[in-house]
Structures are given as structure tokens and as C-alpha cells.
């Protein structure tokens, strides 16, 4: 019984269910300004720390702002910025990786040593270091996460390119007059798709966690903007009287990240991508 349920859950169904959940979160994030019942930043001290009511389904926070609204807007920041980090680091990674693998020689050596140098730091430590040097703020956090993440894509891409370069169909394409750019675009990128989808899915989860952790530390999203990590931080001051203020955003982070993780694992099993 457990076995059948599990194998079903790990295969097609897991991918389907997780994709639906993630799609829902994205829809909510996109539509937040239209579906949210209140303003996310409007202070109403008369309404502060109220319990659930018809007007405020999940109650209000210490400044009388509607919790549900802030949670919906939080999805916007978490998912939006995670997507931005994913896309930009992917772009840099593919570019550097393909160029490095394709040209080879000293260009390859220098770029790969640079990757190793960045990977020599524990990820979040380097991110914190960059934020420390450049100063707190969402843009700096984004830049830092991007600078750290592209390395992984670059390495996958580069290794794939190096192994593909010697294959006959690439040689055939080159002989028949395709430009390097065309070969990268038409033959190499389709081949690195699968590992990139897997790593990308997992990275979305990490990025959301990292953004929330940095906001929790007070380095990312600045008040009064609604972001889940920052909301947890604000909620902790009321942990004795109103623990739900910090519990709600945490549950949302957990759900989103766990969904991305399960999806990533299901995809890696389906595509037969080994990862470490």
C-alpha cells in the first residue's frame, strides 16, 4: 500500500501536483494587487493585532495591516525575485559555460578557476559578504545571489559542451558552415536543458529561502514592504501574545520550498539526472 502510493507520488503525479501548486502561487503573486482585500502598507493603529474577522480573515499585525494581504504581497516578492535570480544567473551561466567550453584553452582555464574561486566560499557566506561590502538592500541581495549562483550553471554547461564538442553531429554542423553562436544555440542548449531544469527548480527553492533569511536578518527587503522572512522577523516581537504573526509566513515559505524540492527531485528521477 505504502509502496504503490509512494511510487505514484514520486512519478508523474508528484510533478503534476507540484506544478499546480507552484502555478497557483505564481498566479496569486501576479494578481496580488487585484485580489488582496486591503493595502499591504497602510497603517491603521486602531485595528492593530486583531484576531480573524470577516474584514480581516487572518487578523491584523502590530500596525493594523491586514495579514492576508501582506502574505499575498509577500508571494510577489519571494517568487518574483527568485525567478529573476534564476533567469539572470542562468543566462550568465549558459553564456560563460558555453563560451568557456567551446573556446577552451586559456579562456576556459581562467573562467573555470574563477568558478572554483567563487565555489571556495560557502554560498550564503559570500552573499552576506557581498551585501556587507555593498550595503544592505534588496538590489544588493539580488546581485549577490546572482553572482554566486551562475557558477553552477556555468559548470554544467561547460562540461556538457566539452563532451559534446567532439561528437560527430557538432563537427558536421561546423563543416556545413554553422556559426559558433548557432551551434551553441541549436545544438548545445537543447542538450543541457534537462540538468538545468532540475538544478533550476531546486535553486528556486534555495533562492526563496535565502531571500527570506537575508530579509529576516534585516539585510534584504526593508520595511514597510511585505516579505515573508521580514514578516517573520516582525512577528517574533509578538511571539508571546500573537504567535500566528510569525507562523503564517513560515508555513508559506515551507510549502513553496518543499514543493520546489519535491518537484526538483521528481524531475531529476524522471530525467535520470544525477546530482550531488
Amino acid at each position, binding site marked *: 500500500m*505504502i*509502496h504503490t502510493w*509512494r511510487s505514484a507520488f514520486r512519478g508523474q503525479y508528484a510533478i503534476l501536483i507540484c506544478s499546480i501548486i507552484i502555478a497557483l502561487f505564481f498566479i496569486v503573486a501576479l494578481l496580488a494587487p487585484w485580489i488582496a482585500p486591503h493595502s499591504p502598507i497602510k497603517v491603521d493603529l486602531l485595528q492593530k493585532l486583531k484576531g480573524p474577522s470577516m474584514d480581516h480573515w487572518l487578523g491584523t499585525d502590530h500596525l493594523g495591516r491586514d495579514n492576508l494581504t501582506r502574505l499575498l504581497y509577500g508571494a510577489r516578492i519571494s517568487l518574483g525575485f527568485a525567478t529573476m535570480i534564476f533567469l539572470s544567473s542562468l543566462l550568465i551561466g549558459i553564456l560563460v559555460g558555453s563560451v568557456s567550453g567551446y573556446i577552451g584553452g586559456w579562456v576556459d582555464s581562467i573562467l573555470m*578557476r*574563477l568558478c*572554483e*574561486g*567563487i565555489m*571556495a*566560499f*560557502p*554560498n*550564503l*557566506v*559570500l552573499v*552576506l*559578504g*557581498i*551585501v*556587507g*561590502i*555593498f*550595503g*544592505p538592500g534588496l538590489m544588493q541581495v539580488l546581485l549577490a545571489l546572482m553572482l554566486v549562483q551562475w557558477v553552477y550553471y556555468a559548470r554544467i554547461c561547460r562540461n556538457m559542451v566539452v563532451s559534446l564538442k567532439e561528437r560527430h553531429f557538432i563537427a558536421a554542423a561546423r563543416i556545413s558552415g554553422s556559426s559558433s553562436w548557432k551551434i551553441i544555440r541549436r545544438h548545445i542548449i537543447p542538450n543541457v536543458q534537462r540538468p538545468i531544469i532540475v538544478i533550476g527548480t531546486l535553486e528556486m*527553492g534555495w533562492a526563496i*529561502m535565502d531571500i*527570506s*533569511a537575508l530579509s*529576516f*536578518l*534585516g*539585510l534584504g527587503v526593508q520595511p514597510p514592504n511585505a516579505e515573508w*522572512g521580514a514578516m*517573520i*522577523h516582525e512577528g*517574533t516581537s509578538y*511571539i*508571546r501574545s500573537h*504567535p500566528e504573526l*510569525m*507562523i503564517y509566513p*513560515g508555513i508559506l*515559505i*515551507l510549502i513553496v*520550498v*518543499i514543493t520546489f*524540492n*519535491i518537484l526538483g527531485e521528481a524531475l531529476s528521477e524522471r530525467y535520470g539526472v544525477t546530482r*550531488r
Partner: protein
Amino acid sequence: MIGYIGKRMLSVIPIIFVATLVMFALIHISPVDPAEAYLTAAHIYPTEEVLEQKRHEFGLDQPLLTQYLHMIGRMATLDFGTSYLTNQPVWTEVAARLPATVELALWSMLFAAVVSIPLGIAAAVYRNSWIDMLSRCISYLGASMPQFWLGYLLIFFFSVKLDWLPVEGRGTWQNLVLPVITLSLVLIAVYTRLLRTSVLEQMQQTYVQYARVRGLRERMIMLKHVLRMSMMPLISGMGINLGKLLTGTIIVEQVFSWPGFGRYFVDAIFNRDIPVIQCYVFFAACLFILCNLLVDLVQLYMDPRISSKGRAEH
């Protein structure tokens, strides 16, 4: 074998070198002027004259190469400069806070190992049973739960509701319980999965079949053969996941007001205390690199075949 060890140890040097270069580059492409950061942190009004004087003092008017060589030279002697905020040498301040962080990290690793080794083995041996499901749930939770949130949840249940354990501080064993649990969950998640996979892998090997054919008891096979081989990926996993442990200490120290290096680092970020930031980042990178080296050497000791067949990329 000696040759392999020597080669592996030498390979550390260029990585550390590149790491220092990355850091140096970061400080210099940053729009923040260290002299200005110093004056802000020290609450001195930045007139052009004072700025100029500070720049000269920090050697910022020297050519980049000189500055870089100077930086490496100082780092080699553990001289990270003086904190902008307190004017104390950074290394003395760090050395005072390091034991607290090491204490937290070691207990967490120990706790994680004590939980995940039996759990990982049981999950592999009783595959698809409830215990396997449990280990799976724990690893998903551990990998997906924000550590700071977990910390506050534990504070809420065990300190606020039940009033069993203190909220913050350091000193007694009660103070250790919640931070250690918070920090080790993510490690347990990783270790358990690693061990489960590697035990399953080893159980497919021919030497296990051979041992069975020889009539060895299953328990013997597990304890004497499979376990020894399965520990290898776990050990390398510990090295790779050191980053998780380090960043974990930063967050956990913040949540539980643990007076360690991680908290000092976060305070430094807020004050733009660049020498302290530089020291932490460099220290973390060195620790990371050295631990991976150590892991390789331990693996070599446990499986001497590695030096002849060369080391697999991991």
C-alpha cells in the same frame, strides 16, 4: 600515496589564492570607500582632509597590486586589521567569540550524526517501511524549513508555552538544546539521505553477495562491510555541507542571541565594518577548503584505492 597526499595538499594553494583575489576584487568594485565607511562607523564627520588621511593610512592610494600583496602578507600572519567600530584588532575579537561558535557547531554535528546514522541505515535496510517514510519526511522538512523559523517555533513551544528551556544566552546545557536542534535538522536531512543512498548502493555490490554466500550473518555484513564503505559518501558529505553548518550558525546565533562569530559578522555587516567582514569571509573560505582537504585525506585512509585510481570529481 605520499605523492597523492602532497599533490592534493598543494592543490589547495591556488584555490585559496583565487579566493583572496575574489574578495579583493569585491572590495574594490564596491562603490563604498573604506575610508568613508570607517569614518561613518567611528562617527567622525568625513571632511576631505580626514578622508585623504584615512585613505593614505589604509594604503588606498597605493597601486592595486601593492595593496593586494600587502593584504595577502597581512592575512598570512592573521592580521586582519582593526575593527572600524571598536578599534580593536579583528583577530582578538574573533578569537574571543570563536569558542562559542565552535561549541555550537560541534554539538550540532555530533547530534546530527547520532540521529542520522541509525536513521539512514534503518531507512535503507527497511526500505519503503514507515521508518523510510519518516526519514524522507525529515529530510524534506530539514531541507525546506527556514532555520530562523524553526528556531522561533522551538522557542514558542519549549520556552514560551512549556517554559522548559531558556530563550537565549549561553552557559548551561539547557541553553544548548534548542540551538543545537535547530542547527542540526538541516544536517540530519542531508546526512540521512546520503547514508540511505550509499547503503542501498553498497548492498547491491558483489562483495555483499559473496559474504552472504559464505554464510555470514546479515548483521555482520551490515556492520563490518556495508557500513564501512557507506560511511565514505557521508564523510565527504560532511565536508561539502560545512557551508550549511557555517551559514546555519550565523542564523541560529542571531535567533538565540548566541555570542559567537556569526553574530559578530552580522553586526559587522550592519556597521559596514569591512575588516571584520573580510576576516569572516576569508576564514569561512579557508575552513571550507581545508575541511574538504581533510575529508579527502580521511577517505584516502579508509579506502587506499583512491590514490591509485585517482580521485573522482564530486
